[in-house]
Each structure stands twice: as structure tokens, then as C-alpha cells.
């Protein structure tokens, strides 16, 4: 299997150790540099932090590896980073609704690694949970399993999959508090909590930044996984 770059270069100084994690856009995106592996949450742009992505395109880090469930649609979601020529490698489960990705695949100007969606989710979860991989029945006995460790467990065929960590996660929450605790809304949750747990530096774009702490019983992503919270309203002012 071709190794996919993972810089691990988010330096200690990038981390905000302050208890109040609410940041301005420039501050929040400053640690993102060339060559990093950036996870973009969301499914078909639902649950995708569109404001963070737009602001990132103006900052323009290059040679990124982007991990996203799908390539979104042209001009929206992770596809925006591709359009801005910031992406060398795309890892996702579906790119069919963004023809611009297909063009780049055909022209070989971008590497595309397609991964079954459940395997992608679990590889990310695994990285966040500090595990070294897992055996899944998905793809057993198909071309997908070729070159991978296969094992029969209780009479059933399984394929070994590696964890997939990231440098940076771009997350969208409905509500967040200053501690970074997040609540997601409806089907916008999808990859958000998983990617936040799997990355070294995590930025949340929140529709609402609560003045008071969220009810601890309602929190879906613990703030310990979050480094910066940007209020969606802030994005209207440009960055």
C-alpha cells in the first residue's frame, strides 16, 4: 500500500492551553501549514464547516492531504479546497457528485484513495481511540483486500485495516461552549466527533457559541478534543 503523507508537524506551540477556546478565525487557522493531513467533517456538505473551509482557501496552505467522507459538490465543501489547488491527495468514500475530482483523477493531478465508508469511519475512530487497527468483514475476498492481512475469525473472513490519524480536523457543531464542548444537530453529526478525536489540532465552527457552559449530560463531543472554537457569525466579517 502506498504510504499517505501524515506530517505530524503540528507543534506544541500550536496548542492553546487557555481554558477559553473561543478564537478569531485567523488565530484558529494559523497552525494549518503546507503538507498537512486535514480532515474535513460532514457528509455531502451537511455537517461540514463551510466557513472554515472558505477562510482556509484564502490562507492557501498547499500540498494538503484531505480526508472527507465525500468530495461534496463543485464549489462547496471539501471540493472547494480541491478547486483552489490546495490538495495533493484526497481520501474519501465517494467522489461521484463532484465531476472536478474525476477530471483531476483522470489527469493524474491529484491522488484519490477511495475507502469504504464504514471502514473510513472506523479507521478514524480507531486513530482517535489510540488503537492499532481492526479486522472488518468489509471487502473480504475482493480486490480491496489484496495485499492486506486477512484472517478467518470464527469461520468468517476479515480484512485488517490501519488507523487513520490526522494533523488537523475542521469540525462543525451546532452549539459549543468556551471549553470546546460540542452538540451536533440532526444528520450533521456524521464524521464530526470521530475526526475531532483523531486529529492533533481541532477547530470547531459553531452556529452558536454559548455564553454559559453546555449541560454536561448533553455534550456529544468532549471539549478535551477541541483546541479552538470559532463562532459562525465571525465569518460574515471576512478574514
Amino acid at each position: 500500500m502506498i504510504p499517505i503523507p501524515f506530517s505530524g508537524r503540528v507543534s506544541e506551540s500550536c496548542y492553546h492551553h487557555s481554558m477559553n477556546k473561543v478564537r478569531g478565525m485567523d488565530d484558529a487557522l494559523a497552525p494549518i501549514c503546507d503538507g498537512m493531513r486535514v480532515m474535513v467533517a460532514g457528509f455531502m456538505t451537511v455537517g461540514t464547516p463551510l466557513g472554515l473551509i472558505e477562510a482556509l482557501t484564502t490562507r492557501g496552505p498547499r500540498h494538503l492531504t484531505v480526508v472527507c467522507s465525500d468530495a461534496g459538490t463543485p464549489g462547496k465543501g471539501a471540493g472547494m479546497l480541491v478547486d483552489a489547488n490546495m490538495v495533493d491527495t484526497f481520501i474519501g468514500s465517494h467522489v461521484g457528485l463532484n465531476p472536478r475530482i474525476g477530471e483531476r483523477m483522470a489527469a493524474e493531478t491529484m491522488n484519490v484513495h477511495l475507502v469504504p465508508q464504514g471502514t473510513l469511519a472506523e479507521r478514524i475512530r480507531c486513530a482517535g481511540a489510540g488503537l492499532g487497527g481492526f479486522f472488518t468483514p468489509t471487502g473480504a475476498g475482493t480486490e480491496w483486500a489484496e495485499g492486506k492481512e486477512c484472517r478467518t475469525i470464527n469461520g468468517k473472513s476479515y480484512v485488517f485495516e490501519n488507523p487513520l490519524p490526522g494533523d488537523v480536523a475542521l469540525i462543525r457543531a451546532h452549539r459549543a461552549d468556551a471549553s470546546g464542548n460540542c452538540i451536533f444537530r440532526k444528520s450533521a453529526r456524521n464524521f464530526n466527533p470521530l475526526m475531532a478525536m483523531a486529529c492533533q489540532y481541532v477547530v470547531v465552527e459553531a452556529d452558536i457559541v454559548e455564553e454559559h457552559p453546555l449541560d454536561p449530560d448533553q455534550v456529544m463531543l468532549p471539549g478535551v478534543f477541541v483546541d479552538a472554537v470559532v463562532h459562525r457569525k465571525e465569518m460574515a466579517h471576512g478574514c
Partner: protein
Amino acid sequence: MDAKAAIARRIAMELHDGQLVNLGIGLPTMVADYLPEGVEILLQSENGFVGLGPSPQEGEIDEDLINAGAQSATILDGGCFFDSATSFAIIRGGRLDVTVLGTLEVDEEGNIANYIIPGKIVPGMGGAMDLCAGAQRVVVATTHCDRRGNPKILQRCRLPLTARGEADLIVTELAVIERQGGKLVLVERAPEVSVEEILQKTEATLEVPSEVAVRSF
């Protein structure tokens, strides 16, 4: 009744009250419109919820609520949302009773090829490989032949496989074919078609029992 409606209606007859079901994009989605009276099922949407309801009315569209086909959706009372890892735990962990999906090819060994035509169509597999490997029962919804009239039920799939040996039931506009003991058995035909015609339009070897049921509509 057109071919797709016939396939959807016939598959709906395979679903039982209380089952958790995932319907693929396109034709499989139509199955929900044909559920027999008294049969209530719970639909899973692999992007992260169970309790998928009908399309929203205009004015009731919520931009945070879509189905796995990226269309605006609704959630029924009793449904709930979860993250993608939980969603695929439901699928692989044995909770999903049935998945219904379309295919490019399916073969005698129950192999399914539905996600890639190398060099032509490379959209990605999405959740299809997980759904085939994980669901308790895999129902393939497909027209009997492709647009050029070539059989889609083959001796061996030629395209890269989505899943090996996972197809349990194949429903076409002409026939219902079940995988029993590692073989494909013709269990039902449409009223307007003969067994001979089905065999002629099928590349795979089909077992033909002495009695082949006739579809009831």
C-alpha cells in the same frame, strides 16, 4: 407497471413488520412506497440515523437533515441520530435485517459488483461494501438485463467486486432468484414471461424447481 415499479413492489413483499432496513439510492428507495398493509419497517440512513421518513414538504426542509443520497429528508417519531462509526456498527454488527441495493453485475456465487467500471465510472463505493458485508440479508434490485439487453446475472462477475458471496436474493422485473445452498434457484417468474425466456436472458446457471411460482401482480 414499469420494470422498476414491479421490482420495488415485489421486494416490498419480502420485508417483515419491525425490520430495520437500508434502502440504496435510486430504485431501492422506491421499495418504501409499496410496503404491504400492516407492515411497518424502520429505515436506516447510513449517514447517521434510523427512522428515515418521507421527503419533506416545501417549507419544511432542514439543511441539517439529508438521507444517504443527499436529498432532504425527515425523521419519524422514535428515530434518532448518531455518528458514522455508530451507523456502520449497526450495519456490520448484525442489527440491520435487510439491505436493498442495485447492481451492475451479480453472479452464481452471490458476488456483487456495483461500484466501479474501471476507466469509466469511478464514483467510489460509499457504504455499499459495508452494507453488503454487514446486513443479515442482501437483496439485489436490478433489471434482468442491461440497457443493451446483455444479462446482468452472470456466471462470474467481470467487474471488481463490492462483496464476495453476499447476495441472498435477486429480484428483477422478470424473476425472483434465491441463493440456496450455494446455487441460484429460480423461485418465481413474472406472469408475462416463461421460464425458458428467463433462462435465455440469464448467463448464470439457474436451478429450476418443478414448480416455479408466478408473481401475484
